[in-house]
């Protein structure tokens, strides 16, 4: 697996002043990660145990030179937070969003692709923690082994990271997997209809 964050990476925590952000932010710092700042609109100028808080990602980056962000914000704010980080030049974003815990989330649809083992790990997590109905789509069902696919370079290598393997793992975890994006959408529509 590629190493994205090391001891030299400067990390900001979007949502540092919130429960999850503070808990994980401080644990990361204690472990040795350079947590150089936090972002919470309206709380700029304060600090969390000495870590300065800024109103925007752009301000945090300007003050600290941060190049990675850990996002711990409510699901509704997650996509805006990611876009804000990207717009400010952050090159690596980790977004932990509690869809399982969010009372307003009724079902979860997950899109994955060939390469790596994130979807298999997600399947384990889903088995152990997720009670909400799910549908999924894994891109790359017909991708030839060893070929980089798309501008993000997804790849099946050494027989690992195949779409079939991921689909099997997710199905075993109770996720309804579609053969194409349209089918995944149809499965989600059925799920929503059945729980309404």
């Amino acid at each position, binding site marked *: 697996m590629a190493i994205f964050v090391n001891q030299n990476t400067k990390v900001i925590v979007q949502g540092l002043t919130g429960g999850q952000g503070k808990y994980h932010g401080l644990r990361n710092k204690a472990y040795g990660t350079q947590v150089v700042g936090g972002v919470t609109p309206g709380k700029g100028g304060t600090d969390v145990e000495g870590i300065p808080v800024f109103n925007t990602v752009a301000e945090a980056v300007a003050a600290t030179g941060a190049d990675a962000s850990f996002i711990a914000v409510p699901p509704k704010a997650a996509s805006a937070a990611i876009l804000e980080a990207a717009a400010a030049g952050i090159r690596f974003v980790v977004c932990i969003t509690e869809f399982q815990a969010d009372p307003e989330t009724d079902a979860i649809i997950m899109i994955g692709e060939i390469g790596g083992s994130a979807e298999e790990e997600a399947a384990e997590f889903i088995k152990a923690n997720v009670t909400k109905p799910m549908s999924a789509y894994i891109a790359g069902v017909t991708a030839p082994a060893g070929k980089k696919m798309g501008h993000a370079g997804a790849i099946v290598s050494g027989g690992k990271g195949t779409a079939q393997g991921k689909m099997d793992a997710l199905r075993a975890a109770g996720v309804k997997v579609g053969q*194409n*994006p*349209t089918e995944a959408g149809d499965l989600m529509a059925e799920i929503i209809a059945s729980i309404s």
Partner: protein
Amino acid sequence: ANFLDIGGGANADVMAAALEVINFDQNVSSIFINIFGGITRGEEVAKGIVEALGRVDLRAPIVIRLDGTNAEQGREILKNAGIPESKLVSKPTMLEAARAAVALSNGK
């Protein structure tokens, strides 16, 4: 089937260049353009297709599914460009367009 990624945010030039690259391959029997644009804009894709058809004699027919950002605008541009159905056909969904592209390919 072969796969070409035009990349997010592709403009008319990129779309036209992509079609020219595809046209070099003698084995291509139909071209399926499948767009659900987020940062990619429908009118840019459409302009690129119109431009490519003007620059180059594309051998293979195109089936296009154009959805997402500015898709309506893109579809209008294609409709008003006066392209014969033998060269370009537009389908509303990915699956319909894929089937049409396969049918055209098998017909050759």
